[in-house]
């Protein structure tokens, strides 16, 4: 046992073990996702996350030890966020097809998504740090983490909230659209991307290429726009 602990200490000297654990958990999560026929309620980030938590609970390693190594993976979120500019640029021309509805829906819809969420959370008793972590809930996760941490929220909480919002968005946007008698896939796609970011966009591409394209456009626009208005508006509230 003593030797086992010594071995663990040794392995935790470098990022090796935490990074390997993350890769293993993610691939198991991905396999589970594919095995279950890619269900909208269990995207790989959720399944992989649950497996990783189980691994951490089984191993004699606490989260801070794990994160000290695994933060090397998180570092790559920086360039991945910058890289979001490229798909936004590639989809940007589609804005011309529906200039008025897209710009109005974005200008009103993105602050609405953030504002409604904060209002409801506040009504249910959220504290300020939780409120700030909820504000970027419809924004793609890397941007949401940056926003939450910059403004005084909790990065981890923001990731969880964003992931769950994406799940709700991918599950219910198609249903809502049907109930409301909307058969335009451009609208469905745009609404999915605006409210459910990358997770809903992955789903939208499964519905149709049109829905997927408009969803990516909405995801990029919402991310960029929220990153601009949230830091300016949020300090006014606290």
């Amino acid at each position: 046992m003593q030797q086992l602990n010594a071995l663990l200490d040794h392995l935790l000297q470098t990022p090796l073990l935490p990074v390997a654990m993350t890769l293993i958990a993610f691939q198991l999560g991905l396999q589970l996702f594919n095995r279950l026929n890619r269900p909208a309620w269990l995207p790989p980030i959720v399944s992989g996350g649950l497996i990783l938590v189980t691994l951490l609970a089984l191993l004699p390693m606490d989260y801070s030890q794990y994160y000290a190594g695994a933060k090397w993976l998180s570092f790559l979120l920086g360039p991945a966020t910058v890289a979001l500019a490229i798909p936004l640029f590639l989809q940007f021309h589609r804005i011309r097809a529906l200039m008025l509805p897209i710009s109005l829906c974005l200008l009103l819809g993105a602050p609405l998504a953030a504002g409604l969420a904060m209002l409801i959370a506040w009504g249910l008793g959220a504290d300020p740090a939780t409120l700030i972590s909820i504000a970027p809930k419809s924004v793609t996760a890397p941007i949401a983490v940056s926003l939450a941490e910059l403004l005084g929220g909790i990065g981890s909480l923001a990731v969880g909230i964003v992931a769950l919002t994406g799940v709700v968005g991918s599950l219910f946007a198609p249903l809502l659209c049907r109930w409301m008698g909307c058969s335009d896939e451009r609208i469905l796609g745009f609404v999915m991307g605006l409210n459910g970011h990358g997770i809903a966009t992955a789903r939208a591409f499964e519905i149709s290429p049109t829905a997927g394209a408009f969803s990516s456009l909405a995801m990029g626009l919402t991310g960029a726009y929220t990153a601009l208005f949230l830091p300016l508006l949020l300090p006014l509230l606290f």
Partner: protein
Amino acid sequence: MIRGFTQILLFWILGESLHFLTAIPISGNVLGMLLLFAWLLLRQQVSAELEQTSQALIAQLSLLLLPGGVGLFFLGERMQGQWLPVLGAIGIATLLSMALCILLMQRLTPAETTTSADQEPH
């Protein structure tokens, strides 16, 4: 790949520097994204290198988010009494804002013409 990655890192450095020097309340990586987007709009084209690198990075977003994301399960007492507001906000607010978005777009969107969006690799 390396060339594209370097360009991305340079835009990140640019964003970080801008954030640090001007105290703009937007984080460096997001500023880097906005700067790169503005640059691409100016040039009206994106190199194959840069497109490849961005695809590779974005494809792994879920994996890269895991280390921070699982921290959610280790917040412990910090989250006491906070789960109800969090889940309520996610459920109710997301449904409400989606319904309002659909309504708004339905009102404003002209009927779909024959080929609205061309198929594109993603």
